[in-house]
């Protein structure tokens, strides 16, 4: 009986696979819009979706996210892997027959060279995610198809790190010749080879005929078209000039496209691993006083704001320091216990006024530094300024252009700032990096040091038991929100509208992942 069940399962799996294989169509060029374009071509130094959308299809990573089963990971260049019981050794078996686009063979040496470049970048090479690999003690290559990572201490996020879309695997030979080779060249093992980048216009990739996954990619190629203006992008989508835009649409644009195109399009929605946070410059008075920071946090009615702003902006969810819906995030019953998340806003505002009075600043005035990008920065900025007005605080809204905004935020030239916390994946190590001490985190713009937060951060990072890790995370959140150095406003909501003829693409809570286009096909 047991054998029969197994046989039936195998038969069913084969039938589904066969059916799937027959359903996909080969050929065609996928045209999609990107609202900005990459300044250079080095994955390890990049941070923007404008980079990942055109560049990712040229590369593979060691692991990648299993699209329909996010946040589960699966092998990309790794065929299989094992993790030692103590969590200190990760052994990957690599796929055979993989080639770079120039025909050279891929081996474990390429993985080693890539991760050494990320973890310990040579002089002149920028590695943004270096800290995520600080626990790596050694990388060994016992043979051409095996790579072993030895860690100094357990790291609960290590497998997620290995699936990062930014960790493009480069050719060891090319890196040896020139460590800056990827900055101006695109050479990967991915499903599409690079054809051209016409600055200000488009980016083109063509199918890599020697791609190691048989029958993939389905597309002949892709063309990323750079369209900066939002209304022009929506018009291009509406006209069918592009079939998709993978960052996200506003609710108004979604409604416009649904009205115009009806059942020709598909709409996908998901909470987004992005939030706008308010950060206080704790080196400036009165923001060095926790009572002032807490007052400003608890005066914000996140529940009402989320409901209202979701109608006009790409924000919708009330959450703590981790994305609402993520398995390690705080549930609503925990959230309402945190300062600033209570349901009784009148009571919270009375407390906020009391705190400001106690701190000696009942008629507080300050400037809110925000980014000159309407969606959703200005919308959320207008919202929090209104919330603060209701406790008698007057705020001037400063909206410099992006370069000045970032420079002021990094340089501490602000009172309070609207900052963003966007990541490729749900991972406490990534999302909490903004909250740990400034002398440890380059993205802490609050300029404070809090050793309790640092200790809790390290504790959760090394905790491999999810339940125990969640408990530490709750303590971290409670302390961070009590201190109020930086507090989340409203979490983003991702809306993707694409033409139905584009198939095989999966929605995710991040606009950085699921973009290698390996399984995407056109139903024409």
């Amino acid at each position, binding site marked *: 009986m047991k054998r029969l069940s197994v046989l039936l399962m195998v038969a069913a799996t084969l039938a589904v696979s066969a059916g799937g294989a027959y359903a996909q169509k080969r050929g065609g060029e996928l045209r999609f819009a990107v609202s900005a374009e990459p300044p250079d071509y080095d994955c390890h130094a990049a941070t923007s979706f404008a980079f990942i959308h055109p560049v990712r299809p040229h590369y593979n990573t060691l692991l990648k996210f299993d699209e329909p089963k996010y946040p589960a990971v699966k092998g990309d260049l790794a065929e299989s892997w094992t993790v030692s019981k103590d969590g200190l050794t990760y052994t990957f078996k690599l796929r055979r027959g993989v080639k770079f686009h120039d025909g050279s063979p891929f081996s474990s040496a390429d993985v080693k060279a890539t991760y050494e470049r990320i973890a310990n970048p040579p002089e002149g090479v920028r590695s943004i995610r270096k800290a995520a690999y600080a626990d790596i003690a050694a990388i060994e290559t016992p043979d051409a198809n095996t790579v072993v990572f030895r860690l100094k201490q357990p790291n609960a996020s290590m497998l997620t790190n290995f699936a990062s879309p930014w960790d493009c695997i480069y050719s060891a030979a090319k890196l040896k010749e020139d460590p800056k080779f990827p900055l101006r060249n695109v050479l990967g093992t991915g499903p599409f080879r690079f054809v051209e980048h016409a600055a200000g216009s488009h980016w083109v990739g063509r199918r890599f005929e020697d791609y190691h996954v048989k029958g993939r990619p389905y597309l002949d190629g892709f063309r990323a078209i750079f369209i900066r203006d939002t209304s022009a992008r929506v018009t291009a989508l509406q006209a069918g000039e592009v079939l998709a835009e993978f960052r996200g649409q506003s609710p*108004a*644009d979604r409604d416009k496209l649904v009205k115009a195109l009806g059942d020709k399009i598909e709409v996908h929605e998901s909470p987004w691993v992005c939030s706008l946070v308010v950060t206080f410059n704790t080196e400036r008075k009165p923001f060095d006083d926790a009572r002032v920071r807490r007052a400003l946090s608890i005066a914000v009615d996140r529940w009402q704001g989320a409901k*209202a702003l979701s109608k*006009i902006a790409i924000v919708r969810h009330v959450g703590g320091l981790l994305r609402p819906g993520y398995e390690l995030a705080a549930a609503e019953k925990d959230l309402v216990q945190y300062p600033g998340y209570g349901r009784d806003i009148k009571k919270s505002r009375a407390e906020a006024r009391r705190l400001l009075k106690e701190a000696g600043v009942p008629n507080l005035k300050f400037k809110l530094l925000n980014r000159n990008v309407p969606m959703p920065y200005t919308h959320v900025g207008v919202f929090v*300024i*209104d919330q603060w007005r209701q406790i008698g605080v007057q705020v001037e809204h400063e909206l410099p252009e992006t370069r000045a905004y970032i420079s002021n935020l990094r340089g501490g030239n602000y009172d309070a700032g609207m900052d963003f916390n966007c990541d490729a994946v749900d991972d406490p190590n990534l999302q909490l990096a903004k909250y740990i001490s400034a002398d440890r985190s380059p993205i802490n713009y609050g300029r404070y040091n809090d050793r309790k937060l640092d200790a809790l951060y390290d504790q959760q990072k090394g905790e491999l038991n999810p339940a125990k890790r969640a408990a530490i995370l709750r303590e971290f959140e409670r302390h961070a929100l009590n201190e109020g150095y930086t507090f989340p406003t409203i979490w983003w909501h991702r809306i993707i509208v694409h033409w139905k003829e584009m198939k095989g693409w999966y929605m995710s809570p991040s606009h950085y992942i699921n973009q290698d286009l390996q399984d995407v096909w056109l139903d024409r």
Partner: protein
Amino acid sequence: MSTATTAITYKVPKRRHPVIQFTMTQPLGAAGLVVIVIMAIAGFFAHIVAPHDPLDLDFGAMLAPPSWEHWMGTDAFGRDVFSRIIYGARTALAVGFLASLAGSGLGAVIGVASAYFGGRIDMLIQRFMDILLAFPIIVLALAVVAVLGKWPVGGLDVNLIIAIAIPMVPKVARVVRSSALAIREMPYIDAARAAGYGHMRIIFRHITPNVVAPFLIMFTAFIAQAILLEASLSFLGLGVTEPTAAWGLMLSGASQEFYVQAPWMIIFPGLAISLAVFAFNLFGDSLRDWLDPKIKL
């Protein structure tokens, strides 16, 4: 031989108050002035006139169409459009008046000085004015805003006013210079020189009062241009910032997303800008006709 004498009688016309005279001879200009005065009063007493606080968010009335409660509807944040237009008049008129005053004033001084000194100084000043004139107004203002950044004083951005004023300078300087060139040749200027008066005294006491008419005309005409420029810069995100009530700003941001669903978000601020510009232009043109003796003849 007898000599016939004819008695000629002169009827001295009754001297009317200048305002009545202006209204009788320039009815369109007077209408423009009425609109300007109404806007100025509404803007000045906005806190009394406006039915709602322009900054109050009302999430229960987002994108509400015009009604008794909200005469011109509400915007994406539920803010009352009518109240924001009234408060916006304060921003528009203050920026327009101050920018025009600064631009026209500086232009007049440069124009008079250029005409008075003549020679190499005149040549240098005029070539510099040519350079400024070579830039389209909006491009020049954009560049100035980008370089200077923001300098908020009393709710107004001083650098925005400077940015709007600078493109006006060469235009006023040209017109005033041409008037001053004629005045420079007058005998009383020679007399003042002969009496040993200093340049400053001659420029400010003897020439400047005589170029007040063209200055006034340019000044009123440029208020309209300044209002339009302020609205354009705010629309482009370089003027005043949210949540301040300003007409140009009301046309940008969320309005661009919801103009189909809520057209009142753009129609009423657009009308306010048009009406203000039209009123100042009518008044400026009429003032020119009224003050120019050649046109009176």
